[in-house]
């Protein structure tokens, strides 16, 4: 016999005879029909022998009706008996949900937690700094601990692989700066000053800042994810048991590599930025490239270049430190890798921008 689709109730005789399927997809409809049928003069029993399919949800409904209307469920199949036994056995008493805390209390608790977390991460950062200094000075004294191959590997990953994206980005920034400069300065008849604008802002700020932001997104996040995954897979613990300091093999090579590569990348970004400015000057204000170079030499001093370059290793230190700290903070689960990676990029960029602002104030006071 082919199962009739849907669910029907046959009320012809004294009993309710159910036919068709009583499963999760029909239970809603069945519930309404059965409640209706049971609302009038109550029949003696519900006969479910005619059902072609009954699942746990259907059995649960029948059991609830049995209790509510004190009606007998009649069936002849042993497998239905098993099913009812299973449903009857199920302890479905829900524990009372806890009273939610009032909003102000939640806010206050959140504030407290964040304050403590901030305090703890400040301590963590300081401790990390100290450890980095100690490990570094020890490595210098015995270069065996310097992990030269690892450093080279990370220089390749964070530096050489980043050259195309960094140079392209620097070129495009110069294009944008030149366009804006010309648009603003032309009404004053000072469009020739665009050269000053592009050269000085690329050398002092844009080159190093955008390179640092790009590297934070590219390599800082990679540091966190790499170390984080190693933590999840207990590789970091394994290192410790073997007697190798995780700090020495995981953190130091990355830190040293980035301190070497970020200034080099910044230098390339500066060159490409100046080059981009030159190309745009040729197009927008009709200055030949050779005279553009001449102008740059006059307006931009060595100081401007050095102001930009001196910031690069500091930013590199911040990015690598933040990336590694967050990697080490990963605990147990895979989703904490994702969370820490996001936090690492956000914190690294924030720190870079904050430090850059400090540098600006400092250089202003020093009159550079």
């Amino acid at each position, binding site marked *: 016999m082919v199962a009739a689709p849907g669910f029907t109730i046959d009320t012809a005789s004294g009993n309710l005879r159910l036919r068709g399927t009583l*499963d*999760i*997809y029909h*239970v*809603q409809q069945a519930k309404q029909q059965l409640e209706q049928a049971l609302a009038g003069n109550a029949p003696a029993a519900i006969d479910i022998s005619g059902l072609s399919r009954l*699942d*746990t*949800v259907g059995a*649960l409904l029948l059991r609830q009706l049995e209790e509510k209307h004190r009606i007998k469920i009649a069936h002849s199949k042993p*497998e239905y008996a*098993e*099913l009812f*036994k*299973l*449903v009857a*056995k*199920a*302890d*479905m*008493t*829900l*524990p009372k*949900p806890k009273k939610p805390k009032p909003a102000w209390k939640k806010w206050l608790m959140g504030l407290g937690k964040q304050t403590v977390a901030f305090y703890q991460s400040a301590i963590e950062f300081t401790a990390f700094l100290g450890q980095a200094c100690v490990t570094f000075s020890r490595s210098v004294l015995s270069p065996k601990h310097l992990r030269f191959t690892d450093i080279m590997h990370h220089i390749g990953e964070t530096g050489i692989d980043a050259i195309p994206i960094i140079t392209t980005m620097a070129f495009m920034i110069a294009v944008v700066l030149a366009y804006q400069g010309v648009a603003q300065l032309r009404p004053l008849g000072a469009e020739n000053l665009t050269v000053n604008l592009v050269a000085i802002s690329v050398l002092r700020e844009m080159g190093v800042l955008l390179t640092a932001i790009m590297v934070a997104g590219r390599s800082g996040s990679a540091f966190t994810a790499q170390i984080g995954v190693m933590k999840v897979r207990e590789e970091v613990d394994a290192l410790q048991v073997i007697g190798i300091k995780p700090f020495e093999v995981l953190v130091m090579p990355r830190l040293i590599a980035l301190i070497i590569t970020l200034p080099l990348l910044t230098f390339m970004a500066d060159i490409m930025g100046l080059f981009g400015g030159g190309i745009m000057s040729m197009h927008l204000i009709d200055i030949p490239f050779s005279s553009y170079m001449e102008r740059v030499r006059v307006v931009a001093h060595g100081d401007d270049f050095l102001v930009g370059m001196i910031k690069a290793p500091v930013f590199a230190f911040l990015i690598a430190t933040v990336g590694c700290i967050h990697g080490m903070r990963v605990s*147990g*689960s895979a*989703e904490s890798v994702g969370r820490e990676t996001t936090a690492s990029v956000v914190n690294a960029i924030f720190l870079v921008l904050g430090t850059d602002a400090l540098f600006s104030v400092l250089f202003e006071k020093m009159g550079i």
Partner: protein
Amino acid sequence: MKKDIIVSIEGLVNRFGKQIVHDGVSFTVKRGEIIGIVGGSGSGKSVLLKSIVGLRKPDAGEVTIEGKAIGDITPAESAALFGVLFQQGALFSSMTVANNIMLPLREHTDLPEKEQRMIAQLKIAMVGLPPETGAKYPAELSGGMVKRASLARALALDPDILFLDEPTSGLDPMAASAFDQLVKELNQSLGATIVMVTHDLDSLFGVCDRAAIIVDKKIVIDTLPKLLKNKQPWIQEYFHGPRGRAAAMASKEKSHGNG
């Protein structure tokens, strides 16, 4: 109609690059039985399971479930037809256990929220978890509880077939045999067909009606007493090694005790 064929696999071929994992695997699963898929490490047990449920497109061959080719089964149909318990549980970590179980209900039925919650609670009780588990997150559960909660999610829509990928791996012997018991109970009371990949000889002898053994990229499928007499060298070694003998003995004693 009771013992008809529910899953059939015909000439299945799976390869990774040049390496052939399955070379013409064919077997059928009857309604209501428990089949254990066994094989050495790297013999492609999980790959076979993935091809059967349609997560991996085989390089050749055909899988039909309830007479329908796996490729033609819509997502809603497949959800109603079979549930899968993944090796690591695969519970969604951002949701509570109850919400994990309610996800298929929310997607494929139009039951009101209250009913869904009740059904989730029923499934939690069915797999032998305490009621308060529903409000917990997967990260708060032990390994055995994760497997049970994941089984509860696989059972959410009362599917006809359950595929279990190493359900007892990573469980201590007590939790493992309790899980075997649970699988057996569900098979009896729900009439569900169960296909499980397993490494565990105890659960193979304890719950499975038949075993499908992957040897030489093909399948040998038979009842356990007959497989014990099989002369194929790998199967011989598998069942007559020290662990195989112990498990076979234990199951024999048990059936004698019961009978």
